[in-house]
């Protein structure tokens, strides 16, 4: 393997991993704090991508504005979803809440189809050229995506150190004890939902100049985000970041050598890892209903 190929595969993997990390982190937060298995997580990512297309292409606004709009819009949508649906489904248990998230995801997909049609929606590249160094050719847009994902994760890390973030962590550890400590669970829940869906919105906005917006991108990334959660374990930001990049890089290298069997290779790796470390690399196992 020469250096050009290695770098190409590494950049591809890091870019994918960055996206997986954002979506998986949002999912883990929502699952840990609110105990909702949010099957619509990937759909917020898809909607963030479509929103970015709308803002940049239809409205002609600058790309950074579109990223901000995607973040805020998805956060608001997450809050509305929580206050309007999740909150009322909570007394009925884990599986009811999971079902409503499936329904919500379907609504998002179908609405996107009606609004944007079946065609892929392309957003112009943020940096419309390639970097060439001898045999090595790289798309700087991908490097921007990697940097963007890392910045967002760092911001999330510091957010989790704030009073609100600490309250979210406490609620995830033990909701009842957190309540006894004076933490307002209802407020924490919708903030968590906002953060979780906002992360996906940003991920969609970052990736759309590279991948374009399609209605299948949500379900596609959700499966991989689940793998990241299994590999990293819940409750660990560092674990999520490490796991995401690991899965992304593994997928990239695996495709080079085993082609369409790459997803099988990843599942085999995850199965072996979870067998020996049920809590993933650095965290805890996924919480099951009633735990």
């Amino acid at each position: 393997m020469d250096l050009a190929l290695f770098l190409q595969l590494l950049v591809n993997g890091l870019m994918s991993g960055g996206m997986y990390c954002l979506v998986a982190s949002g999912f883990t937060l929502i699952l840990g704090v609110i105990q909702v298995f949010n099957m619509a997580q990937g759909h917020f990512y898809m909607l963030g991508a479509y929103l970015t297309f709308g803002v940049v292409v239809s409205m002609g606004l600058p790309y950074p504005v579109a990223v901000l709009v995607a973040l805020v819009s998805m956060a608001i949508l997450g809050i509305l979803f929580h206050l309007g649906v999740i909150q009322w489904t909570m007394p009925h248990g884990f599986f009811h809440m999971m079902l409503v998230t499936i329904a919500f995801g379907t609504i998002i997909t179908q609405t996107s189809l009606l609004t944007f049609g079946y065609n892929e929606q392309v957003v112009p590249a943020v940096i419309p050229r390639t970097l060439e160094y001898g045999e090595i050719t790289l798309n700087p847009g991908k490097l921007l995506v990697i940097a963007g994902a890392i910045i967002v994760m760092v911001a999330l890390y510091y957010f989790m150190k704030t009073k609100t973030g600490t309250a979210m962590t406490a609620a995830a550890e033990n909701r009842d004890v957190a309540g006894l400590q004076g933490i307002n669970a209802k407020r924490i829940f919708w903030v968590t939902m906002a953060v979780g869906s906002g992360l996906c919105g940003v991920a969609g906005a970052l990736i759309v100049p590279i991948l374009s917006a399609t209605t299948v991108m949500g379900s596609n990334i959700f499966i991989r985000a689940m793998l990241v959660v299994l590999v990293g374990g819940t409750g660990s930001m560092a674990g999520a970041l490490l796991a995401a990049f690991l899965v992304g890089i593994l997928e990239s290298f695996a495709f080079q050598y085993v082609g369409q069997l790459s997803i099988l290779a990843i599942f085999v790796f995850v199965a072996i890892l979870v067998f020996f470390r049920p809590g993933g690399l650095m965290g805890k196992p996924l919480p099951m209903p009633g735990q």
Partner: protein
Amino acid sequence: MGKISWKIFIIVIVITMLVAVLPTLMACKAKEAAPSQPAQPAPTAQPQKVLKVGCISGFSTKEGLELKKWNDLIAKVINARGGLKIGNETYKLDFITYDATADTAKARAAQERLIFEDGVKLITNCFGADEVQIASICEENKVLGMGSGFIDEGAKPNFHYWYRTTGIFFGRGFHYLLFKDYATRGGTTGAVINPESQSGHIYAGQIMQAMQLAGLKTLGEVFYPADTVDFAPIATKVKTMGVDVVDLAGAGGDQAVQIISNLKDVGWKGFFSPSSLNTNQFTNLVQKVGKEYLEGTEQLYFDPRGIQKDPVMLKWLDEYTKEYGEFVETGAFWCSGWWFLQDAMQKTGSTDPEVLKKYLDDSKEGVMTLDGYSQLFARPDLGNYRKTDVAPGHGIGMIKDGKLTYWKQVTVQDQYLVSIKAYHLIDTYQKYWDQYGKPTFPAEKGTFTWEDLTK
């Protein structure tokens, strides 16, 4: 509390069933009531007979939706012109299109509804549903069926009522001419990129054979999961293969745009054959990779407005634009079945499936469709000596200065003869020709000749 919950549960179920069943019952009653009403003939004209033609299309695809638009347009325009004249009768055309929803069970239900409830005996323009299932149901019920098909199962001799009016088996002429051009321009090695599926593997194999016939050394195939959104790994793999001609025709327009964009990102340079890109996809492609990267690229040219010179077909294209506004070329190729059906009905003067079947089985001429002439041929390689599989005429376009322009036509003759040679089936077909006679191509001559078969 539990007892109350059970009662409520049962009440909800009963209400739901009533809401679901009652309208159906009412509709059945309305249908039963209709025949007993005395017929009220129009005061000034003879009552028109109604010819019902059915179609099962996949509404979850762009092509499927466009097909419905064409079906509706065909019925509207023909009826506005006074009806469809077949023999001594004039028919009002009722073109019924149901959604296959990419679900085998629902497609079966839709087709059975066409046959048993709507009384349809002719089905055409089928797209996006399981070809073998459609052909089987047509066979069981002696209903004439036409539509698209891509696997050999659908062209086998056990189906006597199914005709493949859009297909890819006799489609290698287009690829041969395209790859030959690329070979002339310096291409030496070829590879195929395709989604992972049964038809994807079959298609990739056929393309590779066309590449070899054109003189390219084939280096392999790259398959990817159909739901892939990130094509960077695929592009990286292609670059490491060291190939200079890549075929993407099985990838689908949107995916082809992504693949080409990623090929440029990894620094790959060479010749590629994109999928059939519609206007929107083509615009996206130019935006993503720039005009320079695309200069000289050849691909299928689907837009009939660039191909057509036939005044009848040109009028149909006008009708589409009048009815729907902006012309969308996606559905034009896939509605070839209607033109075959109309041609058969008008040549035989009949709507009887048995009469039409007899005519089609031994058809000797091409039929003008929106994208040019197409013609049915036998498949002796499958033991099928009836003419049930199509060689479609195609346009080849070339991208110049960021615009796709019509360049030349691939004729039915090119498609048929090149495909036979590419698949190494000359001996099998020669036996068929010795027994049944060589087919003729009365509509238009091609580049590839009978002599080229044996070179």
